[in-house]
């Protein structure tokens, strides 16, 4: 079982699936000879050729839109949007078109399309390269949204996403691309979409996070343990469909919950998690559920981003607060 970084796990999964299924094609900006701006597609062009690893014009709209058509033709496209912050140029194709293919054709057509996009902050990137826009896409019925955090889950869920008969937006933790390393199972390793993971077991507080924020959550849980508070960290792994059972089971036991998101507070995905917990585990709750989020302010320039993105310290404060409440 080799140890890989997140971006190596992406590369490994793509190579594996292209080897297994000759219909899989990778397309996007700079995915070919360059191997992707983060090297996620490194070596694929040399191995699989220009007809399967395709550099496209610089247009997120046509990358997503053409992927739908490629799927109609019988291919299995894995499209890369270089940064999620630019996905809105293709929002119409992803949300209004791709997500609805099966529904609007009353089941006649489907689009087996995976759209990969790195996202999240603290990588000293320019404007719109760091925004956490996951909630914009989680509100599109028909689109599954995966946001894995670890190299093993990135591999297992990317393989599951590519094989899923329906479209998946596969969000990759940009900050974790090289920072997060972990053992990755060899061979054909698939993780089911829609299942959360207990990243750390605990009894006093349930802390929910996804993607790169899982690292901050684990750090906060570690810090809380030194203060005698046992925190259970749930890594959602998939936002849509949401694993309601794992959330309900954990909070029913701990009675307290903190939900962490990197995005601005209002109408973020944490709100969905909080609403779900109160529907499922209201009578177990011993304290109000807390959210830790960025302020309702656009993502700042590099010198300000440490202050903007929720830190383990802010998560720890929320854990303390929820244990003080009631």
């Amino acid at each position: 079982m080799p140890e890989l970084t997140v971006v190596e796990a992406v590369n490994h999964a793509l190579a594996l699936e292209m080897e297994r299924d000759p219909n899989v094609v990778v397309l996007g900006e700079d995915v070919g000879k360059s191997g992707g701006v983060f090297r996620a597609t490194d070596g694929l062009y040399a191995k699989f050729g220009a007809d399967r690893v395709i550099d496209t014009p610089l247009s997120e709209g046509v990358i997503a839109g053409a992927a739908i058509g490629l799927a109609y033709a019988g291919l299995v496209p894995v499209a890369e949007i270089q940064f999620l912050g630019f996905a809105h140029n293709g929002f119409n194709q992803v949300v209004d078109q791709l997500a609805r293919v099966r529904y609007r054709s009353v089941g006649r057509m489907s689009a087996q399309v995976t759209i990969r996009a790195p996202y999240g902050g603290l990588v000293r990137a320019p404007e719109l390269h760091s925004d956490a826009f996951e909630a914009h896409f989680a509100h599109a019925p028909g689109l599954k949204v995966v946001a894995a955090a670890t190299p093993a889950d990135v591999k297992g869920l990317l393989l599951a996403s590519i094989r899923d008969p329906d479209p998946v937006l596969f969000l990759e933790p940009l900050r974790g691309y090289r920072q997060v390393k972990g053992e990755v199972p060899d061979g054909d390793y698939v993780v089911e979409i829609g299942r959360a993971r207990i990243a750390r077991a605990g009894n006093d507080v349930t802390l929910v996070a996804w993607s790169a924020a899982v690292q901050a959550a684990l750090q906060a849980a570690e810090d809380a343990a030194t203060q005698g508070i046992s925190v259970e960290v749930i890594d959602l792994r998939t936002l849509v469909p949401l694993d309601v059972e794992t959330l309900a089971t954990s909070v029913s036991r701990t009675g307290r919950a903190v939900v962490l998101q990197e995005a601005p507070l209002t109408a973020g995905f944490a709100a969905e998690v909080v609403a779900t917990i109160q529907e499922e585990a209201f009578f177990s709750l011993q304290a109000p559920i807390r959210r830790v989020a960025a302020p309702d302010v656009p993502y700042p320039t590099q010198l300000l981003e440490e202050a903007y993105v929720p830190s383990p310290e802010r998560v720890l404060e929320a854990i303390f607060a929820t244990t003080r409440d009631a």
Partner: protein
Amino acid sequence: MNNLEGTRSVALPAPVQFLDEDGELVGGEPPMDDQLALDGYRVMLRGRRFDERCVSLQRQGRMVTLAPGVGQEAATVGAAMAIDSQTDWFVPQYRELAGQLWHGYPLKLAFLWHVGHPIAFQMPEGLNMLPFQAAIAGQLPQAVGLAWGMKLKGDPGVVLAIFGDGGTSQGDFHEAMNLAGVTRAPVIFLCQNNGWAISTHVAQQTASETLAQKAVAYGFPGIRCDGNDLFAVYATVREAARRARAGEGPTLVEALTYRLGLHTTADDPTRYEPREMHDAWVNRDPLRRMQIHLKSRGAVDDAGLERIEGEIREELRVAWDEAQKEPAPDPVSFFKHVHATPSSRLTRQLERFGRDGDA
């Protein structure tokens, strides 16, 4: 097309035309035999009478808002006739019904479309056609992807993608045209320039002298044809399909036509459409000129034309009767096709659906 002087930067030939507005042959021998021309006329008429019937039913409150294609039948049928329904794909916007009928879309489903039944969007098995699309130019990137994918897979098909003059202002149009040029995808972009995007005249849509010339920027030919001349559209699209099949890449065809009817049944063109412009185009009606031509060839006479009218009246009656017998859709059916397998969360919503307000 616009009022600016000195904007003609790209010289394009005059629009392709075979039949002038009086039904006189002006472009040499027709590109199809009389029987095929008569078949094409019949489907154009079917589309016309269908639209008239539906507008009437809509006015009686029996149909939803709909967009008739009156006046544009030659553009859509001529294009459909020029591709092969067995191998080629038809990608519509929403004002192409006559052409879709030629390609194999059933009349019964067309009626169901206009009563708001979801089944109208489920193409019959084996019909190479995407459903109607409300997002203007929204399916063009998909059409290019489909054509490009067929090329990558070595399939023989080409894609006919239809949109209007308003669609040429959309990013999806330009992005799709650009990708098609780069990939040499076997796609035919058919722009039905009908003069109007709801109330916005094409002169306010673009400063280009023609819409066809936009193809030049993307590295492939743009050709104008008389969109009210079945032969002109057929010959132009047939050549575009030949090019696509031969690996010569995409073509943009601008069919010059006119929306003789309404944008939709919610529209009132008297607020913006100059009367004399409308009247001028009434005289260029694509059906009238085909009638004159077919009679001049001896392919049909007045009695024959009357017989066709009667047959179409009967077809429409039967199809509308069948459509009305279609069971109403069950509300729970909309849970079924969101994903191949519904998530447990959606399944639970289905279980609770209609019981209470709780999701």
